[in-house]
């Protein structure tokens, strides 16, 4: 049977505030266990939460970035469940009145097609603590540092129809929250986690099939792989005439499979109700408008500007604007060399190649954007040709100094002195008298093909340092005799 996959995503983004959502404890990855907790985070009786102003501002920024209605009155609710890393017995979240209402994103896939993914809502909630099961016989260790860390949960409509589209959507959310500076985007440290709701239905059917939820997938690659394996698992069951059980599953990257986490018996019954410890959050229009006016340039706006101001292709513009760090690198290097196409080619070509090779993010490039721009200046003014520039970049990468230092130290400067080039060409012509005779006896079409031989000889003799832009016309003139 021909199945259509239906996917909706819930993305938890950790907001990069200094303190927690409801307490004045520090937020930070990697601190010693339980050193960033307060009476509020430990759920001590009588401890009362106070809402963090900055978390509110960040949520409203996100709402504007996805063209959403902002909840002018939002209400915190308690989501009740028992687990030792949730000492209060409830997670403070939002239910009926989230801070961000309906919005959407237009997602561009690799093949250039665009599709609109609806966003149902985004709400503020606190994270739970961490349970460590491995080290203790019959006991579980509890670290509550993460407890009450602010999260924005972004819930999409079931509008996604493929693994590729899901990844493109998550990448776009990732790029928006990092552009806005509201999340560090570090998926390895859990700053962005994704729950995948997935079901299959026969192509053409309107009704949705029974879905499963794959929890806490934390990399782009795992999202794609988890979706592929879950599609396969569900299709196998359905094609054997079986039924899908609505349940929570876990993706195991090592075995590349999903497996059941919670049985249906414990089906979630969270008994939400408004949190009596927190009052409704009421916003003024002025507050919301001010935040809108102060939004930084978003990835899609930046891509459009790169196309219009720099005449870059749609593809180049979207690659260069995909992360704020990449876009900043490009713009800084461009500021030095003032040639957008040249900068774009080198950033997307050689720079990306070296970054991939050393598995580095552009933020950690050993060659700064300014230094990179200075190298490109030497390409543009013909001090060195492209091939030499790659060698110079390699040396810069190894920390051997600036482009100019390396060009000077290694004597890589192109020969641009007309007299020197003429002398070099003359000696080549003298050494290849027979070929020169043949050239002169040929018609123009044939000559065009033959000139390559002489260019090659000249470049060889100059060890690649002769400026090809100068060699060609001088050579043509001298060959005429």
């Amino acid at each position: 049977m021909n199945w259509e996959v239906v996917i909706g995503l819930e993305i938890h983004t950790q907001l990069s505030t200094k303190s927690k959502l409801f307490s004045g404890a520090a937020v930070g990855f990697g601190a010693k266990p339980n050193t960033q907790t307060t009476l509020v985070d430990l759920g001590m009786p009588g401890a009362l939460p106070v809402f963090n102003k900055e978390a509110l501002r960040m949520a409203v920024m996100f709402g504007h970035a996805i063209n959403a209605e902002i909840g002018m009155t939002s209400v915190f609710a308690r989501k009740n469940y028992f687990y030792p890393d949730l000492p209060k017995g409830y997670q403070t979240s939002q239910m009926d009145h989230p801070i961000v209402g309906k919005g959407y994103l237009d997602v561009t896939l690799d093949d250039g097609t665009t599709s609109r993914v609806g966003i149902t809502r985004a709400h503020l909630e606190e994270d739970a603590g961490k349970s460590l099961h491995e080290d203790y016989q019959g006991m579980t260790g509890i670290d509550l540092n993460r407890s009450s860390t602010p999260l924005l949960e972004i819930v999409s409509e079931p509008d996604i129809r493929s693994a590729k589209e899901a990844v493109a959507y998550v990448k776009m959310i990732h790029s928006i929250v990092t552009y806005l500076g509201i999340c560090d985007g570090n998926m390895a440290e859990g700053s962005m986690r994704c729950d995948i709701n997935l079901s299959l239905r026969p192509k053409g059917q309107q009704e949705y099939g029974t879905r499963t939820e794959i929890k806490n997938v934390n990399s782009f690659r795992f999202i794609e792989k988890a979706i592929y394996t879950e599609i396969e698992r569900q299709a196998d069951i359905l094609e054997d005439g079986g039924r899908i059980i609505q349940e929570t599953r876990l993706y195991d990257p090592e075995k590349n499979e999903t497996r059941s986490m919670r049985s249906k018996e414990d089906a979630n019954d969270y008994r939400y109700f408004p949190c009596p410890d927190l009052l409704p959050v009421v916003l003024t229009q002025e507050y919301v408008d001010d935040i809108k006016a102060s939004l930084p340039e978003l990835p899609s706006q930046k891509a459009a500007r790169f196309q219009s101001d720099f005449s870059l292709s749609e593809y180049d513009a979207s690659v260069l604007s995909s992360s704020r760090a990449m876009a900043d690198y490009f713009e800084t290097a461009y500021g030095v060399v003032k040639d957008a196409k040249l900068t774009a080619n080198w950033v997307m070509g050689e720079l990306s190649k070296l970054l991939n090779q050393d598995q580095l993010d552009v933020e950690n490039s050993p060659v700064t954007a300014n230094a990179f721009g200075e190298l490109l200046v030497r390409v543009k003014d013909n001090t060195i040709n492209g091939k030499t520039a790659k060698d110079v970049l390699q040396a810069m990468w190894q920390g051997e100094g600036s482009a100019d230092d390396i060009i000077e130290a290694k004597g890589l400067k192109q020969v641009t002195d007309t007299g020197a080039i003429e002398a070099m060409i003359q000696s080549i012509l003298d050494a290849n008298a027979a070929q020169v005779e043949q050239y002169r006896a040929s018609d123009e079409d044939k000559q065009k093909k033959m000139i390559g031989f002489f260019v090659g000889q000249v470049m060889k003799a100059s060890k690649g340092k002769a400026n090809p832009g100068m060699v060609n016309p001088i050579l043509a003139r001298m060959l005429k005799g």
Partner: protein
Amino acid sequence: MSIDKQDVQKIAHLARLALTEDDVDQYQHSLSSVLALVEQMQSVDTDGVEPLSNPLEMTQRLREDIVTEENRRDAFLANAPKTDAGLFLVPQVIE
């Protein structure tokens, strides 16, 4: 509207309360009366009345995003029956 024994047991389980058989009977009766009261209230015409999430006619105050609390781990751990290496230890929660 009334609820049966199974409902009572489910609610007790969700709240992690251990009930005796006698308790179940008693809760079945008292919870049913609460629901009867709610049912009675539902007959009131509430058209045009906004749902109330808090009886206080005030809005939430906000806190500046500043770290105001220091590390008091030793004091917090002192209350726990069992700890190790800065962690609270609880009976194992996964199989």
